[in-house]
C-alpha cells in the first residue's frame, strides 16, 4: 500500500528476517539434529554435528524402530477410505440439503453441521466401538473419522451447491435422467473445486491426528503420528532427539511432497472454499 521508498526497501528485509527466524531456525534444528549422534543431540542446538554426520545411521535406525513403512501404509489405509466416504456421502447429502427447502431440511442441516462446533465424545465413542466389536480396527478408525468430519464435508459442499444454478440438473431431469445418473454425471463433476478444498482439509486433519487415534487404535495399529509418539516416549529420561527429528523428517516428507507439487492448487483451493 505504502509507496514510500524506505518501506519498499525495508519490507523485503522484514520478510526475509521473519522467514529465517520463524521458519529457518525450527526447520534447521529438525534437520541438523537428525544428522547428529545420540550424545551430540542430547541438548539440541543449531550448530553443525560435532562428531560427524549420522544421517544414514539415524534414518535407518528410526525406519526399523518406528516401523515407518507399516505406519505409512496404516495412515494411508485410514486416510483414503475416510476421505472417499466423506466426499461421496457428504456430496449426496449436500445435494439434497442445498436444493430442497423447508423446516425439515433446515433441522436436518443444523444436525448435519453440528459436528463442526461440537467436539466428539471420545470416551463413549470407544465404548460404542467395543459394543460393535470394531475397536482397535482400521474399520472402526475410518468410521470414527468419517463421523467426526462429516459435518465439515456437508458444510462446505452444501454451501457450494447453493451457489451453482440448478438449470443443468433441471434439463437432465426433463430429459428423463434418474437422480443417481444426474448426481454422478452432472453434480459430482461440478463439485470439483469444493471437493478439492474438502479433500485438502480432511486429509490434513486425519493424516496428522493422534488424539482420536490414541483412543481408537492406540497400541494396536501403526500410523505415522502414533509411531512418532512411541519413538519420542521410548527414551524415558533422555530424549532421543536425533531419532525423534529423523522421524519428523520422514513423516513430514509425504505431505510436504504433495504440498510442493500442488501448492498453487492447494492454496487457491483453501481460500476459494473458505471465503465466499
Amino acid at each position, binding site marked *: *500500500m505504502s509507496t514510500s521508498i524506505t518501506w519498499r526497501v525495508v519490507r523485503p528485509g*522484514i*520478510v*526475509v528476517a521473519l522467514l529465517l527466524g*520463524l*521458519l529457518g531456525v*525450527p526447520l534447521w*534444528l529438525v534437520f541438523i539434529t537428525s544428522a547428529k549422534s545420540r550424545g551430540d543431540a542430547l*541438548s*539440541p*542446538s*543449531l550448530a553443525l554435528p560435532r562428531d560427524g554426520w549420522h544421517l544414514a545411521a539415524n534414518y535407518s535406525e528410526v525406519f526399523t524402530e518406528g516401523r515407518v513403512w507399516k505406519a505409512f501404509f496404516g495412515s494411508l489405509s485410514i486416510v483414503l477410505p475416510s476421505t472417499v*466416504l466423506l466426499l461421496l*456421502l*457428504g456430496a*449426496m*447429502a449436500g445435494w*439434497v440439503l442445498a436444493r430442497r427447502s423447508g423446516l425439515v431440511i433446515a433441522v*436436518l442441516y443444523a*444436525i*448435519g453441521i*453440528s*459436528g463442526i*462446533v*461440537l*467436539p466428539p*465424545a*471420545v*470416551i*463413549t*465413542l470407544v465404548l*460404542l466401538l467395543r459394543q460393535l466389536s470394531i475397536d482397535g480396527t482400521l474399520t472402526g478408525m475410518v468410521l470414527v473419522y*468419517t*463421523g*467426526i468430519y*462429516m459435518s465439515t464435508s456437508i458444510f462446505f459442499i452444501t454451501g457450494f451447491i447453493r451457489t451453482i444454478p440448478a438449470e443443468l440438473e433441471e434439463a437432465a*431431469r*426433463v430429459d*428423463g435422467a434418474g*437422480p443417481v445418473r444426474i*448426481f454422478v454425471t452432472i453434480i459430482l463433476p461440478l463439485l470439483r473445486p469444493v471437493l478439492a478444498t474438502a479433500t485438502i482439509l480432511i486429509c490434513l486433519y486425519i493424516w*496428522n491426528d*493422534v*488424539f482420536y487415534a490414541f*483412543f481408537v487404535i492406540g497400541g494396536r495399529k501403526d500410523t505415522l*503420528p502414533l509411531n*512418532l509418539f512411541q519413538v*519420542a516416549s521410548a527414551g524415558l529420561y533422555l*530424549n532421543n532427539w536425533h531419532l525423534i*527429528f529423523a522421524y*519428523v523428517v520422514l*513423516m*513430514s516428507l509425504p505431505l510436504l511432497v504433495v*504440498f510442493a507439487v500442488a*501448492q498453487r492448487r492447494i*492454496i487457491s483451493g*483453501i*481460500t*476459494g472454499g*473458505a471465503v465466499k
Partner: protein
Amino acid sequence: MIDPAGVTGTATQPPPGRSAGRPRPAQPWWFLAPAFAVLIVFFLVPTLYNLIYAFTDWSSFKTAINPVGLDNFRALLGNGVLLTDLRTTVIYAALVALFQNLFGLVLALLLEADTRLNRFARVMFFIPVVMSALAVGYIFQALLKPSGALNSVLGWVVGHEVQHAWLADSWTLLYVALIHSWKWMGLAMLIYLAGLKTISVDVLEAARIDGAGAWQTFRRVRFPLLAPAVTFNVATALLGSMNSFDIVQATTGGGPAQSTEILNIFIYRTFGQGLFAQATTMSLVLLLVIALMAFPTIWLLRRREQAL
C-alpha cells in the same frame, strides 16, 4: 423422514397439473441416509452416551456400571481440577484466537504485494500448517529446553549464558499458545490474503483521494471490510484450540504442575488411568463449554459483519 420406501412411494405419483416429464423429484431423500447414518451412529450416539455415562461409576476396575448421580462432578469440583482445567482451556483458547489472528493478519499485510519473494514466503509460512502438530510440539520442546537453541541464541545476544526453562515457568501457557498460533498462522494468513483481495480498488482509491494515510485506510476501510475473514479465522482458532491436544502433550504434557493441563489432556490422562467416568464427565464439560462459548461468539461476529 429418511425412509426411502415411503419417499419413493409418494414420488412416483406426480401431482396433477405438473408436466409428465418430471416423474420423480431430482434429489431423493434417501441420498441423505448414508451420511446421516454415519453421523448419527459415530457422532451423535456417543454424544448421547456421554450424557448418561458421566453420571455413572464406569471404570476399568469394576465390571458393573452403576448410576452415581452428580458424584463425578462433585469429585472434580472438590479437588479443584474441573475449574482449573476449564480456566486453562478458556485462557488457552482466547490466547490462540488472539495471536493466531494477529500473526496471520500481519503476515497477510506484509506479503500482500504479488512479488516473487512474497509468493515464496506465503508457501513457506504454510509449511507448519501441513506438518503434524505432534511434530511441531517436539520441535518447540527442543527449541525451548534450558539447554535448547533459543537460550543459546539469547546467550549469544546478551553475552552470557542463558539457562531459562521456558516450558517450566509461570508463563508457559502463553508460550504454548504462541506455538499453537505459529502452527496455524499460515492458514489465517491465507484467509486474510483472500479477504484483502476482495476489497475493490475503487474503495481504496476513494480513501486515498480523501487524504487517508496507510494506517487510517487500514483502520477505517480495510479492516472493517475483512469482517468475514475475521469471523472465519476467530471461529476456527477458538474451535481448534479448545479441541487441542497434540501441541500441549508434546511440549509440556500438561505441566509444570498441571498449569497447562487443558481438558483434552485431562481426558487422555484419566482414560489411561482407567477412570472412564471421570474422563467422560470432563468430555461432557468440554462439550458444554464449547457450545456455550462458540455459538455466542459466532453469532456476535456475524452480527458485526452485518453492521459494517
